[in-house]
């Protein structure tokens, strides 16, 4: 049972009118991991999440969460899922404590200690009125309301949106705290790759509705590399390079990023007879940006070992 993926989609597809927002998505999220779901705005992340939770019907394909088809999630299953979205409904006239009591009534597994811990972590006073909270504090309250039912699966849709650096750090700390229970799974979307690098075990990248990366975070980094070539004069034009992503040329230098650099790639580059050829590691953000760049060919990193382009 526990080897079963917590989230699993097969051919999940959704159109808005004629536009395909999620195309043929196959995703598996193992139990007990922190899974980052990234991609540019409008790439289909929120739509995917809403389909996972059964809030939106897929046009094709299927999704299951905690072993249950997303279209038929029972209240019992839903109680085991924590879902945090930007549009979290809060009543401004309530105090922080009342908001907690209100939410607790719906959850048999409500853990008051978690609730107090998280609001304390965000510097929230129980007697403060919700309407007087800053954006970061509201986010902290929403997180506390989501975490206190002790969900098995936490789905966070861009939880860092609009947070200041301090509140964002508190969010990341809370996520790391949650990994104390090794059977808890966190699935979150984010644009902050620094945060992703801190917390994520796995990375999935959605690009124009298509899943282009789904692998352990480190495999992605290992597979996207930059090669710096120096020449005596101006760099020659580039031949076809397997897994080519982008090239930046300067006076006597050529910086080439590509996927799955290997002996074959090196051979092609050596033909240009550079004075030197050096493999340079990339930051996660640089790797991400050149991977999603418009210039190169589209490539895919969809598991630990398999790379195609």
């Amino acid at each position, binding site marked *: 049972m526990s080897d079963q993926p917590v989230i699993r989609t097969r051919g999940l597809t959704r159109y808005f009118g004629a536009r395909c927002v999620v195309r043929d998505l196959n995703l598996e999220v193992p139990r007990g991991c*922190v899974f980052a779901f990234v991609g540019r705005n409008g790439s289909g992340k929120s739509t995917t999440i809403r389909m996972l939770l059964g809030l939106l019907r897929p046009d094709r394909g299927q999704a299951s969460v905690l072993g249950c088809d997303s279209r038929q999630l029972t209240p019992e299953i839903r109680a085991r899922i924590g879902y945090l979205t930007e549009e979290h409904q809060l009543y401004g006239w309530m105090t922080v404590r009342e908001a907690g009591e209100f939410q607790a009534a719906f959850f048999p597994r409500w853990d008051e200690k978690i609730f107090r811990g998280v609001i304390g972590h965000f510097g929230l006073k129980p007697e403060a009125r919700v309407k007087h909270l800053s954006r970061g504090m509201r986010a902290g309250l929403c997180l506390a309301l989501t975490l206190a039912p002790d969900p098995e699966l936490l789905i966070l849709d861009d939880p860092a949106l609009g947070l200041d650096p301090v509140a964002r*750090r508190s969010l*990341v*700390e809370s996520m*790391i*705290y949650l*990994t*104390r229970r090794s059977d808890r799974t966190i699935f979150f979307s984010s644009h902050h*790759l*620094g*945060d992703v*690098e*801190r*917390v*994520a*075990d796995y990375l999935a990248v959605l690009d124009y509705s298509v899943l282009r990366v789904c692998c352990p975070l*480190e495999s992605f*980094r290992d597979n996207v590399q930059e090669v710096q070539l*120096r020449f*005596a004069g101006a760099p020659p034009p580039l031949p076809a390079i397997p897994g080519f992503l982008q090239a930046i040329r300067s006076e*006597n230098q050529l910086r080439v990023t590509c996927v799955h650099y290997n002996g074959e790639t090196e051979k092609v580059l050596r033909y240009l007879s550079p*004075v*030197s050829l*050096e493999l*340079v*590691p*990339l*930051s*996660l*953000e*640089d790797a991400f940006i050149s991977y999603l760049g418009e210039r190169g060919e589209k490539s895919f990193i969809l598991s630990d070992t398999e790379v195609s382009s």
Partner: protein
Amino acid sequence: MDLIININPGSSVPIYKQITEQVRLAAATGKLQVTDQLPSVRALAESLVVNPNTVARAYADLAREGLIETRPGRGVFVIHKRKVLAREEGRRRIEPLMNTLISEGLAMNFTPDELKEAFEKKLSQWKNEKGPKQ
């Protein structure tokens, strides 16, 4: 023990490598001594605000090198300070310096022989005087 680890997400060095490099450096420079205890995976992960699996991976790499050891129920300890490691690390660090020297030299139209000669001359000066000489 005097170990302060700083990590920097967004660097081109993965976080687990930043941790291993800093522990190795601390061991090489004597900031970490044999029998010193390291924080647990969980404690270090929470203080650095990183995924515990990242710390676990760094510790596993260091354990494989024979630098640290996890004693169940007691903690993580520095067990060895190996010369061969420092050597390997040194090789890794000197490589890019050599590349820079050679590629800059060639780009300035020195021949490989000229470079070799200049390098050997410099090296013999260092050997005799134990310091840089113009």
